[in-house]
């Protein structure tokens, strides 16, 4: 399945990466080559094979519901690009209309 330039632009927007025009062209070429190569998985004899998402059998792990010390507010905010009144200050998340 060949990728188009519009496909790459759409994927980049889904991934929240704003690609420039030249970057988009380069990415299209590179991704197409990589996809051709990884398409090899489709030739593997996998009929009746159960997919495996993880190397170890996983079971749910719980702990007693007890309060334990966590990060203090200043520690949690220590890497914040902007903060105000002990909160993360973020750009607007709703449209202006």
């Amino acid at each position, binding site marked *: *399945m060949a*990728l188009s330039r519009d*496909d*790459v632009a759409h*994927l*980049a*927007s*889904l*991934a*929240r*990466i*704003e*690609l*420039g025009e030249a*970057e988009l062209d380069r*990415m299209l070429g*590179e*991704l197409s*080559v*990589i*996809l051709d*190569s*990884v*398409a*090899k*998985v*489709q*030739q*593997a*004899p*996998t009929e009746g*094979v*159960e*997919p*495996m*998402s*993880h*190397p*170890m059998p*996983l079971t*749910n*792990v719980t*702990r007693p519901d007890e309060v334990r010390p966590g*990060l203090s507010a200043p*520690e*949690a905010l*220590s*890497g*914040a*690009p*902007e903060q105000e009144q002990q909160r*993360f200050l*973020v*750009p*607007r*998340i709703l*449209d*202006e209309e």
Partner: protein
Amino acid sequence: MASLLSTREVSAVELTQAHLDRTAAVDGAVHSYLHVDQVGALAQAEAVDRARAAGEDLHVLAGVPVAVKDVMTTRGLPTTCGSRVLEGWIPPYDATLVTKLREAGMPILGKTNMDEFAMGSSTEHSAYGPSHNPWDLERIPGGSGGGSSSVVASFQAPLAIGTDTGGSIRQPAAVTGTVGTKPTYGGVSRYGLVALASSLDQAGPCARTVLDTALLHAVIGGHDPRDSTSIDAPVPPVVEAARRADVSGMTLGIVKQLGGEGYQPGVRARFDEAVQLLVDRGAKVVEVDCPSFDYALAAYYLILPSEASSNLAKFDAMRYGLRVGPSGVDAPSAEQVMAASREAGFGDEVKRRIILGTYALSSGYYDAYYGQAQKVRRLIADDFAKAYETADVLLSPTAPTTAFKIGEKLDDPLAMYLNDVATIPANLAGVPGMSVPSGLADEDGLPTGLQILAPATADERLYTVGAALESALHERWGGPLLAKAPELKES
């Protein structure tokens, strides 16, 4: 070093200072470190010396300094993952394995260079510039843990921590003439490790000898209730195994699929000689067939980007990390700021893999790519299980070639990806692996590595075989391989 410390012939401060001095002299050429913590390392060394003087019972490695790959969080010490996105970020907490190093009294010298978010096989994808191979400064030291391999190979640290998602401990060890182990998946806590692909990532030890590697493995291994995938069992007896070093009666499986086409003749020649040395010491050799390994690379380059695209979604410019506004927009939205920040903060390889993962997981292609890759993963695990019915461990060359030149494969992602062809199957199946130096290739005089793979949770077998091979090779060479490395000019 540990014995010199315990008999107090050398102090922890002297030992730490010696490594800091070596770094000041040679790291301008090698660029193994992203951050050196002179003050913190010396303070920890002083504390160990005081405790030893007071007669306290100390860990065997107390006072032996260590370097940590910049993918592990370190409280109060910058952690960048080799990315601009995290430039200047100082984590408010320690990764579990860093806590264990501190508790053992091991001074942390600094954070080692790496491919951005551990994506790469050469350390050329670090946003802060590549590391260099101490054997030839024009060549790569492997990746993504090239900082950890080169810091050990250039004697700037005796021990280092790496992480291995598709070979990033073993392949750098092979091309720098050092030892590196990827423990069984879940054998070392991933808490505090900035995740690349959570079902593949595994932290482990890098060192100059098999025994040193085992000693570090024993410090960082073990169950961690903060990591739900951590194995709830004692650390395998790796130190005892490294000391035993006896392969008589063991069966070594040579993987048919790892070693043929694409493998450099010098790499193959050193591998065959090494296998013969193990046979001379009483091991038996069988060939094992793992047909699904032919699909491992393709499956890996679907599973890894899929998990990475999800893991790296947390870099959204809201709570920490880089935040830039889109140009020419007044009062931009959070979404616009996110897209502009990720564009500015991520390098090409990271963007490529995030977009590839977004594609592989998207509706309509999921079954053909990600779903199919997961089935291949099962086939590979089945191949391993079958191989371990006849062999105690499996052997192959660690990497198909010796270190290539910096820049040589940078524009060709597929050629770069091929470097991990022999190491990737172990990550897909979760089994442990080790790379041990096997000599120098005739063509270029550069180090080659031999890979040992063991069944899950049987990590001690790696150390038994690795130590036996190391001792046989040291006899042949009259000392360690690194003694043959060229002197680094002190600047």
